[in-house]
């Protein structure tokens, strides 16, 4: 079964149609990259999968999105967002909370663990996000004392702690320096063995490095989708070729 099934999705803000009918099948336990130039609707598509897009006013969504065969529009919203974790473009741990609490509070609210068990989940998530060794001695410090790359890994840990099956990543390295970015990319390679990762990126190079399958989105439509080698070595569509060779974007 596919992890995420997107069928004829059209999304508009007011009168502006951003997605003009998107179909995608995202298999389980791979890293699936959605790439395309700015403004092509990649983030909108990603945020439609956990219905975060509906926080905006005037959003209209048509079409169907299924998570492991079940319509997300018929699922309980808190359950959907527990199963579909998300990491954002700007590292956004809550600055007023401690490193520990950033992870623990959502674990508590979602009843993932209780009492002493919470400590274990926090440690597990931080290890999973390869942040544990850097922060284990200062878990009670405020999260805003971390570096950008550490903050982003904390956000990944925060998402993983809820034991999601799908992890959405919206340009997670866009605001990081190259070293921090490559750490995140390594982490993604590790995580895709257990999770389905859907990553949005505006960098074809990044998609080529980390993804198994790639969809190229242009002006609200999927131009081409396929295995990463196909897309980058013998693209069927001229637009795709131009994009991956850096002539548009």
């Amino acid at each position, binding site marked *: 079964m596919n992890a995420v099934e997107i069928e004829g999705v059209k999304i508009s803000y007011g009168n502006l149609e951003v997605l003009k009918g998107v179909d995608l099948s995202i298999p389980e336990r791979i890293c699936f990259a959605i790439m395309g130039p700015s403004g092509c609707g990649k983030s909108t598509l990603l945020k439609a999968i956990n219905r*975060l897009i509906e926080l905006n006013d005037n959003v209209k969504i048509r079409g169907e999105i299924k998570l492991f065969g079940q319509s997300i529009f018929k699922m309980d919203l*808190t*359950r959907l*967002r527990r199963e579909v974790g998300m990491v*954002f473009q700007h590292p956004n741990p809550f600055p007023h909370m401690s490193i520990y609490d950033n992870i623990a509070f959502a674990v508590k609210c979602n009843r993932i663990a209780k009492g002493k068990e919470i400590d274990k989940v926090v440690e597990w998530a931080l290890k999973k996000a390869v942040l544990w060794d850097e922060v284990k001695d200062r878990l009670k410090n405020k999260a805003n004392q971390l570096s950008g790359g550490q903050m982003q890994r904390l956000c990944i840990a925060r998402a993983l702690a809820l034991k999601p099956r799908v992890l959405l990543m919206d340009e997670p390295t866009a605001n990081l320096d190259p070293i921090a970015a490559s750490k995140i990319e390594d982490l993604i390679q590790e995580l895709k063995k257990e999770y389905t990762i859907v990553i949005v990126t505006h960098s074809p190079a990044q998609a080529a490095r980390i993804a198994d399958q790639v969809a190229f989105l242009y002006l609200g439509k999927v131009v081409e989708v396929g295995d990463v080698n196909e897309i980058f070595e013998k693209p069927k569509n001229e637009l795709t070729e131009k994009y991956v060779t850096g002539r548009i974007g």
Partner: protein
Amino acid sequence: MDQFKIFLLPVVGLVFGIIILMLLVFTLNSIPIFQHEGVAIYTTNIWKASEVSEEEFYGILSAIYGTIYTSTIAITISLPISIGLAVFVADLMPRRLKELLIIPTDIMAGLPTILYGIWGVFVLVPTLAEIMKFIHGHFSFIPLFSYYNPTGFSYLSAGVLLAIMVTPFATSLIREAYVAIPNIYREAVYSLGLTRFEATKVLLSYIKPAIIAGTLLAFGRAVGETVAVSLVIGNAFNIDASLFAPGYTISSLIANQFGNAFAYKLMPSALFSAGLALFTIGLIVNIAGLIVLKRWGYA
């Protein structure tokens, strides 16, 4: 640029000058009463006016107590309402209806306070009196409700009235801060499978400094409110734990006693020293509020 600065300097100087001069006037005029009885003016509850100046004795402890008591009641009532209203307007109301609630609250914040006072005397006090009698009848063993035969003119009435008056102010401060929470944190909260209640709790904890500052500034307003309070508090030199007891506040004391103060030698000085106490409380609360607001700079 420098000439511009020089041009503005007198304006800045004027503002600071007025504050300093006021403080000076209050301090200088308080000296006679301090010489007469020392700090007893602030630590005793005696109000003895006399033609013979040696027999005059004034202690405004009951007014200081009443000021803090009524303002605390006001904040206790107003804070949950302000937060609830702020969240409701920001998150739950349809965009077009928001103004419908924001405009009346802003108008409420700016109304002349005597209007609240009159409403308090003719509507609030009689209504609360009935409720007080009922509660006193059944729960008089609890100290808060213990005052015998409540008339309605009481700490509670003043506190409720003050709550109504400061809520619009507090709610707009909290609402502004709540709406200004960066979108990236809003998205983060909602991406974590939290219920609406849990998500709101996290967002409110993010603006906690703004809530504290809003509370302090609202407290400052409640402390300074005069006319409305003096109409409903009962104006009695009284220190009582009961919500239903009549009392005094510093500002209502000054307003009430001012008329006949000049018939006595030391009473004007006593009222100035009361003003000094009010000045100090107001200054502390407002500065604390502003400091908290200033320090609020995480992200």
